[in-house]
C-alpha cells in the first residue's frame, strides 16, 4: 500500500487525529501534577480508546469500555482519592524527582523501540481485510458457547474481588468497640464539657466507616454492570 493510498483513506485521518489525542492525554495522565486532573485525563484516554474500537468495528467492546472502564473504574478511583486524602493541591509532588524520571523515560523509550521495531518487522505492509462491523450477538454467541468457561471463571473472580474488597476495607469489630469504650471513658472522666468533642469524633468515625462501604458498593456496581452487559449480549 503506497503512501498516497494510505492518505486518501479517510479512516486513516480519523486514526491520526485520535492517536495524537490519545498520546497527549496519556502523557498528561502520567505527568500531571494534580491528582484529579490525571484521573480526568484517563477518562478522555479511555473515551478515545473506545473511539478506536468503533473504528475497528468492535461496537460492543467500545461501549463496554465506556460503561465499565469510565463509568465504574474511574469513579472508584475518585473514591480512592477522596478516601486516602490524596494531595489535591499543587504543593506536594506526585512523581519522583528527576533522578528517577530520566532512567524511567529511557526504559520506556527502549521498550517502545523494541516493541515497535518488532511490529514493523512483522507487519510492515499488512492491511485489514474488508471492513466489517462485529455484531454484539456474535460476541454473545461466542462468549456463551466457545468461551463460556473463562466467562464463568471471571464471574467467580469478580465475586472473590467483591468479597475481598469488603473484608479488606471494613473495620475490625474489636477496633470499633475499643474506640467506643475509649470515648465513653473520656466523656465520663471529663464530664459534659467534652461531650461536643466526643460527638465530633463519633461523627468522623461514622464517616470513615461509611467510606469503605461506599468503595465496596462501587465494586459491587461494577460487577453488576458487567453482568448486565454480558446478559444483554446473550439476549440481543
Amino acid at each position: 500500500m503506497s503512501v498516497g493510498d494510505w492518505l486518501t483513506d479517510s479512516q486513516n485521518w480519523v486514526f491520526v487525529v485520535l492517536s495524537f489525542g490519545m498520546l497527549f492525554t496519556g502523557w498528561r495522565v502520567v505527568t500531571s501534577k494534580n491528582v484529579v486532573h490525571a484521573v480526568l485525563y484517563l477518562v478522555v484516554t479511555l473515551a478515545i480508546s473506545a473511539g478506536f474500537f468503533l473504528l475497528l468495528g468492535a461496537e460492543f467492546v467500545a461501549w463496554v469500555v465506556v460503561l465499565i472502564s469510565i463509568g465504574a473504574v474511574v469513579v472508584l478511583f475518585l473514591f480512592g482519592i477522596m478516601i486516602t486524602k490524596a494531595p489535591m493541591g499543587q504543593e506536594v509532588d506526585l512523581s519522583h524527582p528527576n533522578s528517577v524520571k530520566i532512567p524511567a523515560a529511557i526504559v520506556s523509550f527502549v521498550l517502545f523501540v523494541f516493541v515497535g521495531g518488532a511490529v514493523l518487522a512483522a507487519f510492515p505492509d499488512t492491511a485489514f481485510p474488508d471492513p466489517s462491523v462485529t455484531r454484539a450477538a456474535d460476541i454473545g454467541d461466542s462468549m456463551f458457547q466457545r468461551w463460556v468457561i473463562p466467562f464463568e471463571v471471571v464471574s467467580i473472580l469478580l465475586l472473590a474481588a467483591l468479597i475481598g474488597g469488603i473484608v479488606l476495607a471494613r473495620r475490625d469489630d474489636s477496633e470499633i468497640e475499643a474506640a467506643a469504650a475509649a470515648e465513653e471513658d473520656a466523656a465520663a472522666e471529663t464530664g459534659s464539657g467534652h461531650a461536643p468533642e466526643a460527638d465530633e469524633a463519633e461523627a468522623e468515625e461514622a464517616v470513615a466507616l461509611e467510606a469503605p462501604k461506599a468503595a465496596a458498593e462501587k465494586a459491587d456496581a461494577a460487577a453488576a454492570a458487567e453482568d448486565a452487559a454480558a446478559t444483554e449480549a446473550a439476549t440481543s
Partner: protein
Amino acid sequence: MLISQFLLLGAAIFSLGVYGVLTRRNAVMVLLSVELMLAAININLVAFDRYLADSLGSGQVFALFVITVGAAEVGIGLAIILLIFRNRHSANVDELDLMKW
C-alpha cells in the same frame, strides 16, 4: 488502514503507562498508569481480532475479560491502598519498604 499503525499506537501508550508506573510516587497514580497499560493492550487485542477476521471474535472476548479483570484489580488495589493509608497515613510508595532487606 494498516495493522501496524494500531500496534504501534498500542506500544506507545503501553510505554507511557510503564513510564507512569516507574515515576509516580502516589500509589493511586501507579494504579492509574496500570489502567493506561490495559487500555493499550485492549487496542492491540481488538486490532488483531479485526486483522484475523476471527469468526469467534476471540480478540474482542479477550478484551472484555481484560476490562473485567482490570476493574476487579482496581477494586482490590484501592482497598489495599486504603488499608495502608489507614495504618500509615500516607499513600507514598517510597515509604512502603517493610519487605526490603
